[in-house]
């Protein structure tokens, strides 16, 4: 019984460590989906976009006003922490409710 639990625990540990968004540095080329509260119009979105574009490693910013989402694309091999994102959104005058991370390399492998 204990022999079966050790591999299972190891597998759970590996899964937890490689799962995006749990404090570890995201893998290369991540896309980040930010839920931003308070964005209601183009002027709000412009302020958020302007702040997020200034973050190092951010390659692209796309705002979806209707869903209150901002999609960030990072440069390959780079990472941005949640705290940096939250600070920049706050400086733009809004609140970051959550971040969902998508690993580009893993997604590409998954579609092959």
């Amino acid at each position: 019984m204990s022999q079966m639990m050790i591999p299972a625990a190891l597998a759970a540990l590996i899964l937890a460590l490689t799962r995006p968004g749990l404090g570890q540095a995201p893998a290369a080329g991540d896309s980040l989906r930010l839920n931003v509260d308070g964005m209601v119009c183009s002027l709000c979105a412009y302020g958020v976009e302007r702040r997020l574009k200034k973050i190092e490693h951010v390659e692209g910013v796309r705002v979806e006003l209707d869903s209150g989402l901002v999609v960030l694309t990072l440069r390959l091999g780079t990472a941005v922490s949640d705290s940096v994102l939250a600070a920049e959104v706050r400086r733009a005058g809004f609140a970051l409710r959550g971040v969902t991370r998508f690993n580009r390399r893993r997604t590409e492998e998954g579609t092959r």
Partner: protein
Amino acid sequence: MSRALALLLCLCARVGAAQEPIFVTPPVTMYQFGGVAGVDVERAGRTTAVSTEAAIGLLPPWTVSVHAVGIDDPRAAFELARVHVGTRVRLVKVDRPREWLLLSAYGAVALPAGDAAREVAESHAVPDALFGLSAARMARGGDSFGDVAVARVPTPAGSRTVGTFGLAWGWRPRPGGYGDLEGQLFGEARMQYAERGVAVLGLAPGFLVHSKNTVFKLGVLFPVWEREVEADPVVRAAVKVLF
């Protein structure tokens, strides 16, 4: 006198104003290390008031601004009436999905100017100082605003206090995506009360269009009720750019 009061309805509102609505002061403060700059043109009777404003955010809840007002009166050459230095502080902000609520306090004082500027400020009721509170609820479907302000206005005999109260409702008929040209229709109401019992109530239909960081807005303020004075309608147009 009537023209001066009609102009004041707008000049009080303009200091510290950012992008919305047209006559009622919005409570926006969120321009850290960026800002808003714009030109307002206002026509009341045969007098045109031109003002420029630049507001810079030093912190998300704190902006400072510089605002200059010039008056073009058919009886005289264009004259700079006042340069105001203002500030705005965010008191409360609540962010919700596709909605925010904001309350802020603002104030402005006029820099010292020469006798010629003071005469123009007196004849067109450009304030020496003002203090106000403004609140807003902004949402995808439309925005609503409230504003209360007290201004000190120069007169040949000294000065007098003028209070204004404004409400505005906005409606976006077709909320667009980011970067699309988007419009909002406004209905605004402003009431002004001055010492010695002078009061004016004005209603203003208006609209604004914006795309990303550029805003154009136009509104007409119609006095619908006056006590002791007869105010002229005021047309106001403005272009503002966020940077």
